[in-house]
């Protein structure tokens, strides 16, 4: 399979996915696909700073900032959700800058830890700031279907909105990865001192990567709130749902690659929903136990994630031609 064929295959898959609502009318299936698309988008946005080796476990912060901004503007000030989306991006960008500026020089676990703390602090503030956020009860998006209200009777519009969102974020991540910024990030990840010695402003690269990542996460969060009609602190700032889950998708799919988070989201979202709904009624929390086990197995046995297995397979079937690996990595 050469690069062109892969591209064709990708486009065909995308078209086939886009046609799903035509054939499948079940609300459940649409919901599942929408959820997968949201997670593809969020995991890919999370992945952008990972090109530079910065792994955040606090992306719920930006997701939640975006969600709260759009919801508060709409519910409390009757601002159109479409304007709210722009405001959500702006606030998430500010959040990204506030978090990243002091933390940018931290590496590895300390950065990760500080990012958790940041998201948790925001969750606490959202619970405490009752006049604005309505505390832990949260805010409900009134159900007034209509394009202007970003609220819809059927599940179809959000299917396409989230699909578009996923495509946009993946394309942006791809563009970043193969831009000067992407190479600066990768240089910093493999050897920060050497990159700096060669004149790369690695701090700036990390900062910009984080702005992209946080801004996109804020946008996704704002859409998500209108998808589920509610914003509450323990949901939207949830450590497991929106900080750990995107990271988990990235690791299990293949860390630091473009397609890893996509594959991870496609595999893990249905698995998680299945465990939650079919077994979750009996055992709350079982899905996370399974996630944890999958994660430990991945880290120990396939640190490159699912994508590394696929690459291996392609390599074997194609008789070990080096170019296959190259194109796969470039894809």
């Amino acid at each position: 399979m050469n690069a062109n064929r892969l591209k064709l295959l990708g486009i065909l898959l995308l078209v086939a996915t886009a046609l799903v609502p035509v054939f499948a009318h079940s609300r459940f299936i649409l919901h599942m696909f929408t959820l997968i698309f949201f997670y593809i988008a969020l995991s890919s946005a999370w992945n952008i700073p990972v090109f530079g080796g910065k792994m955040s476990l606090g992306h719920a912060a930006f997701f939640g900032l975006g969600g709260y901004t759009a919801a508060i503007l709409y519910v409390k000030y009757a601002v159109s959700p479409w304007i709210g989306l722009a405001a959500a991006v702006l606030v998430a960008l500010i959040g990204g800058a506030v978090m990243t500026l002091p933390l940018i020089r931290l590496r590895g676990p300390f950065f990760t830890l500080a990012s958790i703390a940041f998201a948790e602090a925001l969750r606490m503030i959202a619970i405490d700031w009752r006049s604005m956020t309505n505390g832990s009860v949260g805010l409900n998006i009134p159900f007034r279907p209509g394009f202007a209200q970003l609220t819809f009777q059927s599940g179809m519009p959000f299917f396409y909105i989230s699909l578009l969102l996923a495509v946009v974020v993946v394309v942006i991540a791809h563009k970043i990865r193969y831009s000067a910024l992407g190479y600066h990030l990768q240089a910093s990840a493999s050897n920060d001192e050497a990159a700096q010695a060669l004149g790369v402003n690695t701090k700036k690269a990390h900062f910009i990567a984080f702005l992209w990542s946080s801004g996109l996460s804020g946008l996704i969060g704002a859409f998500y709130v209108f998808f589920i009609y509610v914003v509450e602190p323990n949901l939207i700032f949830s450590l497991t749902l929106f900080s750990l889950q995107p990271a988990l998708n990235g690791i299990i799919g293949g860390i630091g690659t473009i397609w890893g988070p996509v594959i991870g989201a496609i595999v893990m979202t249905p698995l998680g929903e299945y465990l939650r709904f079919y077994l979750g009624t009996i055992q709350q929390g079982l899905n996370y136990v399974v996630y944890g086990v999958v994660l430990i197995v991945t880290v120990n046995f396939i640190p490159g994630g699912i994508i590394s297995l696929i690459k291996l397979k392609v390599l074997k079937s194609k008789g070990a031609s080096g170019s296959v690996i190259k194109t796969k990595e470039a894809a």
Partner: protein
Amino acid sequence: MELIVQVLVSGLLIGGVYALISIGLNLIFGVVRIINFAHGDFLMVAMYAAFWLHILAGADPYLSALIVLPGLFLFGMLVQRVIVQPIQEASANMQIFATVALSLILQNLALIFWKGDFRTVQMPYAMLTFDVMHIIVSVSRLIAFLVALASILLLFAFLKYTFTGKALRAIVEDNTVARMMGIKVERLYLLAFGLGAAFTGLGGILLIPFSAVYPTVGAPFTLLAFIVVVLGGMGSMGGTFSAGLFIGVVEAFGGTFVSPALKEAIYFGIFILVLLVRPQGIFGKGKGTEEIGLK
């Protein structure tokens, strides 16, 4: 004025327990060089163990330490052997995820078995207080502080005067050289992890008479212990102790004069402040900070 002294006393008392938990983390961190994101969950496990020993066997929480602490010691060794050792040479990011996964598993196993309810041990002495010059001191909190202090001193003595303790300190200083000197590093990793878990477990035992246990009770403690360790200087036990007391006091004042709900926000503020002003920690030299990612 009385209020300030009262808050100061409560802060110091709880700070002793924080120091104990953080020293457990620092021991694991300093010796094994791994960031244990499941640290607070060890505390949760110990609290549940004490709770169930009390409910099912009628054991006094303090007495249950006789079973819970060896149990946690073994559990810590098991974690080191099964989860940490295979990824000891892996990248820091992979190590994070192994312990994050452990935390996820422990918290959710607790949720599966015991639901999300807040459970408390009702002991007759839990509400006992006494009065010193109009300052009210809770007996169980005083016990917590004194036991924490005593066990920290015991650990100091162990590290300072026994051969094994010296070997542990040698690993903290430089594990390559320690290995060359014939120290069985892997075996001491097991010991350090076991001890770290047991210290944290003791923290749980001391907390259970006056705090509820629930599946995610440990999560804030992971964060707290890290902040204490960073503040006190990594690998510095004395620094960790002072930093633990300090955080206890700050939290008490924040809780009284700002808002108890903003605990985490206050932690985060302190964390950022320390990292900005003195990343090598306030009290310690901060050995090993370079390789772990602080610079």
